[in-house]
């Protein structure tokens, strides 16, 4: 990637080495690298300078595990990348909202989170379909179940959804802003609460970043225990969602068993650290609790038992013709659309995209123990359900190997102050997909800028695309097959 500063996952570089290119060169180099098969990891403001806003682009070379960084400085507008590269569309909407920089030529700069000082939430124009017999169905922010708030607007013709508008921001609580100026005693807890069902994922992404910026190496045992936390989180959420899918088609036996099994996995996490969500465990420098041999033995026993019951429960799912009839060819996301939109995680893999941070950006965490990456095809609700199950199987296989040889060393290494004037990215494959944390430090080694990209940020638009042409009654199924995070998106 010519013109880019080359780095990797959790590899800090000096801010002074970050290329600041003229706008034309920046656009040209970014678009040319994307055209050559690189992937857009991030497009964001980075800092306010006296001459304008510094924009940062981060591109991934997934085959080599490399990350390229390049920046430019713009006054108050620049020619948008979105018309040339659709995956930039959401980043540019966010850029406009957070930094006031207008990407000229962007099709529609709708608000992303409705932060303070902007338009009031809900007061926004939606994409509208007009014509005889066309109608709109508006849902939310308060949904019918115990679900986070968000607004959905379906443009329908009869039962058929022509287009779905998704408008979020109701969970916006200022997480990124609160992390700036740290690290302090609240930082790790803010990381754990970016998305409660991904506490281990975001805590690991945060810790990996802080360790990179402070030059801290954790012990092999600490990395192993983090992988245990991450994989348990993956299994619990996937099996819970399979149960929720069963519930949505009214197949209650599998719904009940999977719901119970999700809790059993959460209880294994609680056995290891005291919290069902894995809180209070992953800390900068390693882990706060080190389970003894007896507990690890108990964990293997519990996992083996849960695996037997999970197999039994999902076997009912796959053999139920009524469930298959509802899920097959429903909510299809083509591989082309997944690539064009920059989708990550199980929904991308279920559409045939072979991409997983655990293998492509292993870092010390998954070095030498990346699991087999399951890649599906079809991209429909059934493919996403099957993808979840295959990822559970792979996670169990990984845990089985890992717990046989959990490594040695102190659970917690001391963490020094952060290197001044540096930048680093941290990638972790959470259960929903790629979690990205990025930070820069100031001259005193404090966090000057902190950016979080939850996989939901990339994937919400894919749900809207998957719903096109579908029956509105299939929305719950489609939605559950993605199960995206509102709080992780809203921050």
């Amino acid at each position: 990637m010519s013109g880019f500063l080359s780095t990797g996952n959790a590899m800090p570089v000096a801010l002074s080495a970050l290329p600041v290119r003229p706008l034309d060169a920046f656009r040209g180099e970014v678009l040319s690298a994307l055209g050559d098969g690189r992937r857009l990891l991030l497009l964001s403001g980075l800092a306010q300078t006296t001459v304008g806003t510094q924009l940062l682009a981060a591109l991934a070379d997934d085959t080599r595990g490399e990350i390229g960084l390049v920046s430019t400085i713009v006054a108050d507008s620049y020619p948008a990348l979105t018309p040339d590269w659709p995956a930039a569309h959401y980043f540019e909407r966010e850029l406009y909202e957070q930094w006031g920089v207008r990407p000229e030529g962007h099709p529609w700069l709708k608000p992303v989170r409705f932060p303070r000082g902007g338009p009031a939430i809900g007061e926004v124009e939606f994409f509208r379909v007009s014509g005889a017999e066309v109608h709109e169905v508006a849902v939310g922010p308060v949904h019918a179940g115990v679900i986070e708030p968000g607004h959905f607007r379906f443009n329908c013709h009869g039962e058929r959804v022509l287009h779905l508008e998704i408008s979020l921001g109701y969970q916006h609580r200022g997480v990124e802003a609160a992390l700036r100026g740290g690290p302090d005693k609240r930082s790790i807890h803010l990381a754990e609460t970016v998305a409660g069902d991904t506490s281990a994922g975001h805590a690991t992404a945060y810790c990996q970043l802080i360790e990179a910026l402070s030059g801290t190496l954790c012990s092999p045992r600490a990395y192993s225990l983090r992988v245990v936390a991450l994989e348990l989180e993956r299994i619990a959420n996937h099996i819970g969602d399979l149960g929720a899918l069963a519930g949505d088609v009214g197949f209650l036996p599998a719904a009940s068993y999977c719901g119970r099994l999700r809790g059993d996995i959460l209880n294994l996490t609680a056995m290891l650290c005291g919290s069902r969500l894995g809180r209070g465990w992953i800390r900068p420098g390693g882990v706060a609790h080190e389970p003894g041999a007896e507990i690890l033995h108990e964990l293997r026993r519990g996992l083996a038992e849960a695996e037997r019951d999970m197999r039994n429960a999902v076997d009912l799912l796959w053999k139920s013709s009524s469930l298959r009839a509802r899920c097959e060819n429903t909510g299809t996301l083509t591989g082309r659309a997944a690539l064009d939109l920059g989708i990550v995680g199980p929904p991308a893999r279920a559409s045939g995209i072979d991409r997983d941070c655990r293998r492509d950006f292993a870092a010390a965490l998954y070095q030498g123990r990346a699991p087999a990456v399951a890649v599906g095809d079809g991209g429909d609700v059934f493919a996403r359900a099957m993808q979840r199950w295959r990822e559970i199987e792979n996670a169990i296989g990984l845990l089985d190997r890992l717990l046989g040889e959990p490594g040695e060393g102190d659970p917690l290494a001391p963490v020094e102050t952060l290197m001044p004037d540096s930048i680093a990215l941290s990638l972790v494959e959470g259960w929903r997909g790629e979690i990205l944390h990025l930070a820069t430090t100031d001259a005193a080694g404090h966090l000057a800028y902190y950016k979080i990209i939850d996989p939901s940020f990339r994937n919400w638009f894919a749900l809207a695309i998957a719903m096109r042409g579908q029956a509105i009654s299939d929305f719950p199924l489609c939605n559950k097959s993605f199960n995206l995070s509102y709080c992780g998106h809203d921050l």
Partner: protein
Amino acid sequence: MFKALLARARQGHRTARYPAQPPSLPPLFRGRPVLDPAKCVAGCARCVESCPTGALQVSEAGPELDLGRCIFCGECADVCPADAIDFTQDWRLAASERADLVLTGDGEPRVAALRHELRRLLGRSLRLRQISAGGCNGCEAEVNALGNVVFDASRFGIDFVASPRHADGVLVTGPLTANMKEAALRTYEAVAEPKLVIAAGACAISGGIFRTHPEACDGIADLLPVDLYIPGCPPHPFTMLDGLLRLLGRL
């Protein structure tokens, strides 16, 4: 059909025998903290400095811990040089009065059962509308767990309903973001009188880890008349079940 029956036999009966038997909780579970002022070292304020949410204060009378702010991270117990703070296995944390959440020694929060007339009105059921207002979805996940076969809150007549019009009250989670304020208050207004308000989790009670963020309201305590406070980050499903059953006078 036959396969489904076989699976049913295999998966077994899983509902916890609560409240007839105490819940089974892991040894590391961090429940109700107990403070021992006698052990407290004069001039030491390490617990206060370590607390990420300002839940702790130390006065001459000893340490004071506000369960409404506590996220049960256990940092204070870890840094205390005198072991004056201990997180016990006690899952019973809910209280009717905000002031009762402030612990000074080995005190326990108290839940007053609802007035007799209201209990008669509710009969054997409690229908709640859950309002998710800006947290991390951790509390929502544990509220959802109340519906699974292990906790099975519906065997006590406790259910979560889709419409505020069908509800006897609201159970709020999250610090109440500015962006959710109007929707949350309007949902509350849509519930018919008499109605209950339950604040579940540190965020809804005090703002939790998001306290003082200009994007949120530090919880609902100043905006809605709260009948039951359920501490935790998130509260364990047994903590929620215990609070709800006490409120209904069933425990």
